[in-house]
Each structure stands twice: as C-alpha cells, then as structure tokens.
C-alpha cells in the first residue's frame, strides 16, 4: 500500500482524495504538518489559490521542510495553483514559493473566470484515450528550463510538464470523471 498525500492548506482537496480512493493499492492522506510530509510516498499540491496556499505554508513553517523533501526526491504533482507553487519563475511577480522546478509560469494566463474553459486532448504519455482537460483561471508555462520537459500543449501553450520527481498540470483532472492522470502519477512517479 502506497500513501499519496494531498496538501491540505486550501482548495480542491476532497476532489483529489475521491480520485485516489478509487485506485488500487493507494491510501490517500491529507497533509497539513511536517510529520505528515515525512509519512507519504508522494504528494499532490491541489488547485486553489496559490497566494493563499503560499501564505499558509509560511504561516505553519512548512515551506522549507516541503522544499527539502521535494529536493530529496519526494514525488510531487502540482495541479494549477500547485504548478505555481513549484515554479522557479513566475511572470510579473517577485514572490516565489517552493521554487523547485525549472519552469517559468504565467498566472491567470487566460484571463478572468469568463475565460475559463474545457477541452479534450490526446496525451499519449498519460493515456491512450483522449483526456478531458478543465482550465479554471489557469496558468501555463511560458519557458522550460534545461531539465524540464513538456508533456502536453494546448493551442501552443505548455500546460503539462515534468522534471525528475516533479509533475505539473495547468488543468484539473480531479474535476473530471477520468482517473487516467491520477493513475499515471501513482504508477510512473510514486
């Protein structure tokens, strides 16, 4: 049994837990403390508001321990806000959060809620079937560093990438009926 944690500061925590519950051999755990970070075999940084999550990580002194765990190899998947937490560079913003992944991201890259959208896309690396992709006030990647690798693009923008033990997606597989992305993270990273 592998334990996959979901960072429990704020956001779509339950939605990820529901998805993980359906996978064989996976026990989902909500992570709010340093002790819990040490217990898990992998960690999901859920969608939500990146500034709020960044603050909460600081308030509870979790930024450093989490950063160290990721640098030591803890498999991690950031969805939407989670992508921003992991990025080394954020456009039009000085503040960084975990700053472990060699990517530059643009926040609210598509605009306001009126510009949120969904689409379907084949991502051969993840699944044979087309995947439903949901973008909510989403960021995308404007630049990949040397170590980072694009996994998917939509309309020419990089919306999914990986680097060693880190995976990021602009979209929210936890909001769809498809478990393909969660299976991919559990099998290939954790």
């Amino acid at each position: 049994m592998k334990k996959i944690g979901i960072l429990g500061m704020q956001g779509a925590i339950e939605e990820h837990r529901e998805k993980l519950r359906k996978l064989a051999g996976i026990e989902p755990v909500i992570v709010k403390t340093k002790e819990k970070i040490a217990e898990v075999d992998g960690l999901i940084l859920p969608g939500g508001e990146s500034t709020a999550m960044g603050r909460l990580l600081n308030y509870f002194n979790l930024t450093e321990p989490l950063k160290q765990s990721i640098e030591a190899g803890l498999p991690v998947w950031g969805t939407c806000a989670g992508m921003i937490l992991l990025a080394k560079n954020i456009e039009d913003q000085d503040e960084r959060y975990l700053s472990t992944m060699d990517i530059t991201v643009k926040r609210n890259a598509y605009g306001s809620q009126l510009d949120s959208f969904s689409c379907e896309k084949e991502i051969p690396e993840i699944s044979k079937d087309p995947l439903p992709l949901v973008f909510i006030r989403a960021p995308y990647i404007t630049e990949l560093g040397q170590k980072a690798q694009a996994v998917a693009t939509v309309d020419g923008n990089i919306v999914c990438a990986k680097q060693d033990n880190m995976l990021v997606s602009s979209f929210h597989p936890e909001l769809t009926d498809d478990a393909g992305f969660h299976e991919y993270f559990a099998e290939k990273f954790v």
Partner: protein
Amino acid sequence: MSDRYTLNKNLAQMLKGGVIMDVTNVEQAKIAEDAGAVAVMALERVPADIRKEGGVARMSDPKMIREIKEAVSIPVMAKARIGHFVEAQILQAIGIDYIDESEVLTPADYENHIDKSSFDIPFVCGARNLGEALRRIGEGASMIRTKGEAGTGDVSQAVRHMRTMQQDIRRVQAASQPELMHLAKEYAAPFDLIQYVHDNGKLPVVNFAAGGVATPADAALMLQLGSDGVFVGSGIFKSGDPKKRAKAIVEAATFYDDPEKLAVISEDLGEAMVGINCDALPEEEHLDKRGW
C-alpha cells in the same frame, strides 16, 4: 447542463477551505490578498456601515471595482441587488470573477431574483434553508452561502441557517422516492434538485458560511458545521488590527478541527468588531428576510 455552468461551479471548488473578505479600496484588497484570502468582495461600504448609514444600498462604482481587480491576482467578486439584472450585466462587462446577488444591498425586485442562467459569469447567492438554496441554484447560482445576519458580528444566524440546511438535507436524504415530490412542493424547490440532494446527501454546489463571522473561532465553528469556507464582511476591517485578524481567520480555516492550533491562532488579536446582538435588531432591520 452547460459547460459554462460546470466551469463556474468548478471555480467555487477552488475556493474551498478559504476565506473571502469584504474590501472597500485597493489598500484593503492588498491586505486581504497578503493575508491569504482566496478572493475579495469589492464594495463601497461594508455591511456594518450600510446598517449604520441606512438609505438605499446599490452596486458599487465600477471604477472602484476595476481598480481592485487590477490591484490583486486573486478572484474579485462584487455585489448586485437582488433582481437587479442590469447591475449584474454591468459587473459581467467589467470582467470580474463572481457576482454576489446579495440581500446586503437593497432589493430591486421583491418577487424575482436574477435569471442567473442567462449569464456567463458565476453567481453566489444567500440562503437560509434548503428550499431557498435550491431555488437559487435552479435560477443558475453556482455557489451558495448562508445569509447569516451581515454587519452584526453575531454568528448566531449563520449557525441557524447552516444547521437548518443540514437538517433539511438529512430529511430529503432519508425520505423514500415516492415522498420526494411532496418534499419538492413543501420546500418550493425544483424536483430534479431535490432528487440530487436525495441521491447525494449534499447540495450540488459549494456552500460557504456568511453573515456575522468575526473571529477565528467563528470561522472554525462554521467549517465544523459543514461549510466549505467562509465570507468575512465587516469582521476584519472593523476590528482593531485587520492584518492580524485576517491572517488568523485564514489560518483557522485550515486548522478548523484542531483546538490546540486554534488556541494559538486566537491569541492576541486585539479588539474584535463591536457587534450587534441579532435579537436586539428590530424586525425591519433583519437583512436575512430579504430574498424569497
């Protein structure tokens, strides 16, 4: 169900476990964002001042809303009067992220709420019980909040509304299939939404608490009662130390079920807003009676 409506419900899911704060200018909006608010509600006067000053309360100046939108990166919400669909059209044109069709403003229509399904922009609406929540969802609201009693700093009405909603939900869930139509009639709610509540034991949208939340303990109380997050109106910027209090309420929403953490979080916050006991309000000053 349209894609747009699903996306709008999805945005509310991203706000869960978070605190949405009322702000009246750019400076307050920045304080709220910096403290860790998941969204701000831009308005000219907080409910406590609307109460004090009286008169007709309307949608805020679009210029002020636009300035706040430009100053922060988190979602921006603004209030339209109940039934005032042109105020809603204007707010949609500004391109904010969420409209609150709110009883805190003076209603523009004493029979009909806004037909929210005709808009692309998402709406949150207040409710005191399951029937009211489902009527608003039936009209197209993609998020619900308790009405509570805004601008009082007295959490008792928010507690009453949340408990009533939970009791109603348990009743619908426990009912047998043949009883559902009668319940739809009794709650004056769309049948398909009663059916959803029966099958799933919850509302089909995110449900926040609002109206009277003033302390970290109030926020944690509402979350323990089953709210997905909280709105704090007058409670922050009418308190002695808004920065500290805003941070503390954000922290409390994450550790709402950990009394030891809550004890530390609640320490040394300075004065809470003075507040008004809801029982002492004359009947005509109860804002939660607005909307139907």
